[in-house]
């Protein structure tokens, strides 16, 4: 392995699942793909930790499992110590598992309830034919001791332990084969805060002593900040932002990172920060939004240059656009009568009584009239053709900023002077001077 090669290098990783479908769907070839991981690249150096954060369903666990080939990746490469493991045979893979381990969120369900702790850890040693006889017992005792468990408890069964203790057993089992790399899939999410802190400290100590690298998956930014050397924030199968904790928490930030951070409840009753409330929930990965996948919810979605929108007005117009495209407005339930209908539509869509730009107002009124007639497709096309934003047409790529790499057009010089329809300049090469619109 060359000196500059990281311990783990993931390149263009994709993991698609087939969506649930019924017989008719299959007959008509309507099988659809769920793009759980949609082109993800990152590196992890020896003895370091990458924190992977995002909401449920964004693809975090699929990445963890694909790296170990517990799930077969759909595309992409995973280089471990310079070797592409996606091409390994089963037996080569088995040897590799000695070096790559995983611990799970729910220790209860990941430990065999019929085995004693001794057997659970012993099993890991046996599979890889590591120790036997007296040295085997000594090794198990040493491992239990290392994770802070009483070695005399080796003959107990999992149900006799608390959640925190079970997680320690899971860690001991992973350590048994002396791995260089462990995927930690939400290892503390099910634990109480005081116990969570104990496990986080334990993982850090093990890293210091044994030089193990971690991919640490969590849905909570404040948990990974503590343990990670680098953090990647994911949204719908893609990395939105990646950088060191300092970089990630400093501007420029991806609008999604900003929202995630501001949503963490502060344990301080007098805290008066502005909480960014995102609309709706994460869209389905079966049919993800075009362009930037976050554009259906992004509070900073880029307004068209030819109109004069307040940001909140533009957000409301974008939501109208999205909902007309989805035909998701139940017009028949609103009050009848043109004026009343318009008013309740605007109310439902968070549109102010009139927009600050009269020309934009005219277009929106026209669109609302079409909505009232349930001409959703025409309303959607009108809005899409009149109001263009790169956020819904061009997919942002990760590019270098002053603080980490961010995939957002706001930080792309190509869009500085308003939306253009071209493709963005080459990734990475343009050391994009970060711009922020307020």
């Amino acid at each position, binding site marked *: 392995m060359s000196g500059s090669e990281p311990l783990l290098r993931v390149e263009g990783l994709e993991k698609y699942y087939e969506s649930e479908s019924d017989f008719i769907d299959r007959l008509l070839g309507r099988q659809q793909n769920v793009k759980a991981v949609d082109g993800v690249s990152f590196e992890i150096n020896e003895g370091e930790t990458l924190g992977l954060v995002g*909401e*449920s369903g964004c693809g975090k666990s699929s990445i963890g499992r694909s790296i170990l080939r517990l799930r077969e990746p759909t595309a992409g490469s995973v280089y471990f110590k310079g070797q592409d493991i996606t091409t390994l045979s089963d037996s080569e893979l088995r040897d590799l598992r000695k070096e790559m381990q995983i611990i799970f969120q729910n220790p209860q369900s990941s430990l065999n309830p019929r085995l004693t702790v001794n057997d659970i850890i012993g099993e890991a040693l046996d599979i890889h034919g590591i120790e036997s006889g007296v040295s085997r017992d000594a090794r198990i005792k040493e491992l239990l001791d290392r994770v*802070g468990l009483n070695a005399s408890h080796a003959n107990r069964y999992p149900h006799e332990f*608390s*959640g*925190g*203790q079970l997680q320690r057993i899971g860690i001991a089992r992973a350590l048994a084969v002396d791995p260089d790399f462990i995927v930690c899939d939400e290892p503390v999410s099910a634990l*109480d*805060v*005081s*116990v*969570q*802190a*104990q496990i*986080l*400290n*334990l993982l*850090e100590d093990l890293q210091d002593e044994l030089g193990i690298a971690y991919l640490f998956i969590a*849905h*909570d*930014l*404040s*948990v990974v*900040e*503590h343990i990670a050397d680098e953090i990647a924030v994911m949204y719908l199968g893609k990395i939105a932002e990646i950088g060191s904790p300092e970089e990630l*928490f400093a501007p420029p930030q991806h609008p999604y990172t900003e*929202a*995630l*951070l*501001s*949503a*963490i*409840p*502060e*344990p*301080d*009753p*007098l*805290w*008066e*920060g502005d*909480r960014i*409330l*995102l609309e709706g*929930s*994460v869209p389905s990965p079966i049919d993800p939004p075009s362009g930037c996948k976050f554009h259906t919810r992004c509070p900073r979605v880029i307004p068209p240059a030819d109109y004069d929108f307040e940001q909140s007005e533009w957000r409301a117009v974008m939501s109208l656009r999205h*909902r007309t495209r989805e035909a*998701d*407005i*139940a017009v*028949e*339930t609103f009050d009848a009568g043109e004026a009343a209908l318009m008013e309740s539509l605007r109310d*439902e869509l968070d549109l102010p009584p009139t927009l600050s730009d009269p020309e934009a107002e005219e277009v929106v009124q026209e669109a609302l009239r079409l909505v009232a007639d349930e001409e959703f497709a025409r309303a959607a096309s009108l809005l899409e053709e009149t109001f263009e934003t790169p956020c819904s047409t061009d997919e942002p790529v990760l590019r270098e900023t002053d603080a980490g790499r961010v995939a957002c057009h706001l930080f792309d010089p190509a869009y500085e002077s308003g939306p253009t329809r071209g493709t963005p300049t080459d990734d990475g090469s343009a050391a994009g001077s970060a711009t922020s619109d307020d």
Partner: protein
Amino acid sequence: MAMLEVEDLNVRFYTEDGVVKATNDLSYRVEAGERFGVVGESGAGKSVTSLALMRLIDEPGVIESGEIRFKGRNLLEMDEKEMRELRGNEIAMIFQDAETALNPSYTVGEQISEAIRYHLGLDEAAARERAIETLESVGIPSAAQRYSDYPHEFSGGMQQRVVIAIALSCDPDLIIADEPTTALDVTIEAQILELLEEIATEFDTAIQLITHDLGVVAEFCDRVMVMYAGHPVEMAPVEDVYYDPQHPYTVGLMSSIPRIGDDRDRLQTIPGRMPDLIEMPPGCNFHPRCPYAEESCTRVEPPLVDVETGEPADPINSDAQAAACLAHTGELSGELDYEVTVRGEDDPAVPGDAPSSAGVSDR
């Protein structure tokens, strides 16, 4: 008289392994329109407390003694019929797991209008209309359309909104919310907390919020009770508990929260874990984990006292900060010397953060 007064509540579970003392002489009150937080780690007795309020403790559990007065009437003396009328009507409950709270084989609209018909005696059309209004008020877009969708057609956050809509549909005076956001992503949690806050303000509904998350309490509650091993260990208005905690367990809880932007190398922890409630340590139940424990703590059970006067606390009539630690009864020779640091002007304040000498570290 407060709207809800709980006095000396003792709940026991008679299990094969022994008697679980799930709540011990628990007393507190919730005022009309107030937001009261119950916080503590798993197994502290938070859920049992809430279920007791609804008289939903089942075999092998019993409410052994105490009173639960709601608007002056002792719930423990009501017959089953009176209780049924109260549940869902004057007191409503929201659980952590919205999916199991909803019936998968009925549409969400049917489930809400059934509750409305049952409690308010409206006819079908009127109940439907009210159900749609309620769905709208909890932020379900196209409510009339979604009325006839089944629960599985909703995301987790939307399902929790539906559960909240059911709780609201009869205009209750008190909502008991047991970890209503624990199963949700943070951005959805923020939406649901905002919604609960709007509701509490708009309808003047009191909310008893049960959570293990001190951040959620800080954001949402007026007063808070910290529970440990079935005991209330600290009770006070929320600012007092956060800026001036008076029980070592509260301090430990606060300092184990990982905070963004603090540069501590290691997280502080509370060593060990909560005892099982069958065989509790003698004296102060917290003493095996407490950094300030002394010999007396292993013998004397600390009563909940007013931290200013050392007199027995009166949580039903007084707002004074109360804690159950011998440091406040004069029976501890040392002092609770921890430091609460508050972040600078620009930064949000952070109690219990950083160099607190309550530094309990993991083995």
